[in-house]
C-alpha cells in the first residue's frame, strides 16, 4: 500500500492507495505552503510550512495525520539582515538532521529538529556577498552525502562540496555555464543555477545535475562536469532522480527558462539507462492532450522499489510503479505542488 505526501501552495494532502483508487486526506496545515517533508533518525515525520505573512515552521508527526509544531525552526540570528523565507529540504546525515533554507543557508540539528544551529562554513562563505537569487529565490534546496563528503545545491549560486564535515566548502561547478556570463567570458567562482542533483550512493562522486543551463554529470565529485543531453527535447528542467538498484535516471524536461512548460505541451519523463549518455521517453501512459504545466525542484520522489512520483504546478500527480515503464495520472487535483514524498 503506497502512501504519498503532497505539499502544495495551500496545505498538504496525504494519498493512500485503496484498491484501484486513492484515498485523500487533507488539507493538512490549511492556508500554509507546505514546502518539504522529511523524517528524523527515529522515524518521526517532518513537514516544513511557510506563509507569505507569518514566516516558517516545522511540524512533527508519528502518523502523518496528527501534527505538532516544533519549538524552534531554523532562524537567522536576531538582528540579521537575512530573512528565513522557506525551508526547502531536510537531509539525514548520520544522527544529524540538516535543513536547507532560503535565504540560502544550511542548518543542523543534533536533537531531531528540536533546536538548530547554522553551518557557518557554508552560510558565511567568503563568496556570500556575490550570491544572488534565481526565480525560485536564494535557496539551499538539495543535499547529498557519501563517503565522508557532503554536497549542497544553492540557486543561483552553484554546487558546494565539503570534505571536512561541513567546516569548509568549495564551489564545484567547472564545466557548467554560469547564469550571468556569455560564452568566452571570464568564468565566475559562483553564479550557477543548479536545479536538481542525484548521485550513486555506492560511488557518491558520480553525480547527475539538472541545471538552469542544461543537464550534466560528474564522475569526480564535482571537480569536472560534462553536458549530457543526447535525446532530450530541452536541457531545462528541475527533476533529477536516480534509482539506486538499476541506476536508471529520470528527468522531466521543460522548454526553457523563459517558458517553463513541456515542449509542445508533451509532458513526459525521460529515462537514461547508460548514466546519462542517452535519453528517451520513459514508458507509456502519457496523456496525448497538451499539458502546459511545470514540475518544481522538490516536487518528486522515488522509493527505490520502482516507485517514482512527480507533481505539477497544475496540481496533478504522475506515478510509475515500475521505474517508468508505465505511468498513470492520479485523479485528485491539488493546488500548485511544491513537495512530494513517498512515505510508504
Amino acid at each position, binding site marked *: 500500500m503506497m502512501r504519498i505526501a503532497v505539499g502544495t501552495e495551500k496545505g498538504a494532502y496525504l494519498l493512500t492507495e485503496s484498491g484501484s483508487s486513492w484515498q485523500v486526506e487533507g488539507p493538512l496545515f490549511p*492556508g500554509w505552503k507546505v514546502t518539504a517533508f522529511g523524517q528524523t533518525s527515529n522515524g518521526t515525520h517532518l513537514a516544513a510550512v511557510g506563509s507569505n505573512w*507569518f514566516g516558517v515552521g516545522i511540524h512533527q508527526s508519528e502518523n502523518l495525520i496528527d501534527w505538532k509544531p516544533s519549538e524552534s525552526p531554523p532562524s537567522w540570528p536576531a*538582528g540579521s539582515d537575512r530573512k528565513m523565507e522557506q525551508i526547502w529540504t531536510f537531509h539525514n546525515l548520520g544522527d544529524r538532521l540538516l535543513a536547507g533554507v532560503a535565504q540560502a543557508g544550511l542548518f543542523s540539528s543534533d536533537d531531531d529538529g528540536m533546536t538548530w544551529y547554522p553551518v557557518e562554513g557554508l552560510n558565511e562563505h567568503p563568496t556570500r556577498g556575490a550570491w544572488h537569487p534565481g526565480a525560485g529565490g536564494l535557496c539551499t534546496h538539495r543535499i547529498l552525502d557519501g563517503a565522508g563528503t557532503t554536497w549542497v545545491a544553492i540557486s543561483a549560486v552553484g554546487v558546494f562540496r565539503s570534505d571536512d564535515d561541513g567546516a569548509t566548502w568549495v564551489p564545484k561547478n567547472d564545466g557548467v555555464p554560469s547564469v550571468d556570463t556569455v560564452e568566452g567570458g571570464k568564468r565566475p567562482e559562483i553564479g550557477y543555477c543548479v536545479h536538481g542533483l542525484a548521485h550513486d550512493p555506492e560511488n557518491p562522486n558520480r553525480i547527475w545535475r539538472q541545471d538552469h543551463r542544461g543537464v550534466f554529470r560528474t564522475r569526480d565529485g564535482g571537480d569536472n562536469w560534462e553536458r549530457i543531453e543526447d535525446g532530450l527535447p530541452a536541457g531545462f528542467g528541475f527533476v533529477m532522480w536516480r534509482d539506486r538498484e538499476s541506476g536508471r535516471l529520470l528527468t522531466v524536461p521543460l522548454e526553457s527558462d523563459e517558458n517553463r512548460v513541456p515542449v509542445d505541451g508533451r509532458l513526459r519523463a525521460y529515462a537514461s539507462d547508460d548514466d546519462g549518455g542517452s535519453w528517451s521517453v520513459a514508458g507509456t501512459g502519457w496523456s496525448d492532450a497538451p499539458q502546459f504545466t511545470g514540475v518544481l525542484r522538490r516536487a518528486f520522489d522515488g522509493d527505490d522499489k520502482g516507485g517514482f512520483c512527480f507533481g505539477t504546478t497544475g496540481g496533478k500527480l504522475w506515478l510509475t510503479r515500475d521505474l517508468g515503464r508505465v505511468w498513470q495520472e492520479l485523479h485528485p487535483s491539488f493546488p500548485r505542488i511544491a513537495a512530494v514524498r513517498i512515505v510508504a
Partner: protein
Amino acid sequence: MSVTVRLPRLLDQAVAGGLRRQANGETLAAVLDSLFVDEPRLKNHLLDESGRIRPHVLIFVDATRADLETPVLPDSEVQVLQAVSGG
C-alpha cells in the same frame, strides 16, 4: 487588568492555547512579550529577524493600527491580522 489578544485563524496550529488570549503590558511590545512566554513559537510568526513586526502582519490596538511602541491600556483589545497583499 489584562489585555485581550485575538489571533488570526492561520496561526491556530502554531499556538497551544487558542486564538483568543489574555496578556499584560503597557505597550504593544510588552503585551507581545508576555504572550510569547506562553507561546514561544508565536514570536517567529509575528516578528522578523530584526525584531520588527513582519511586513505583511497588521496589529491593531483598539481598532487603531499599532507599532511596537503603541501604548496599551487596561482592557484594551489587540487584534492581529494578515495584510491583504495581492489578489
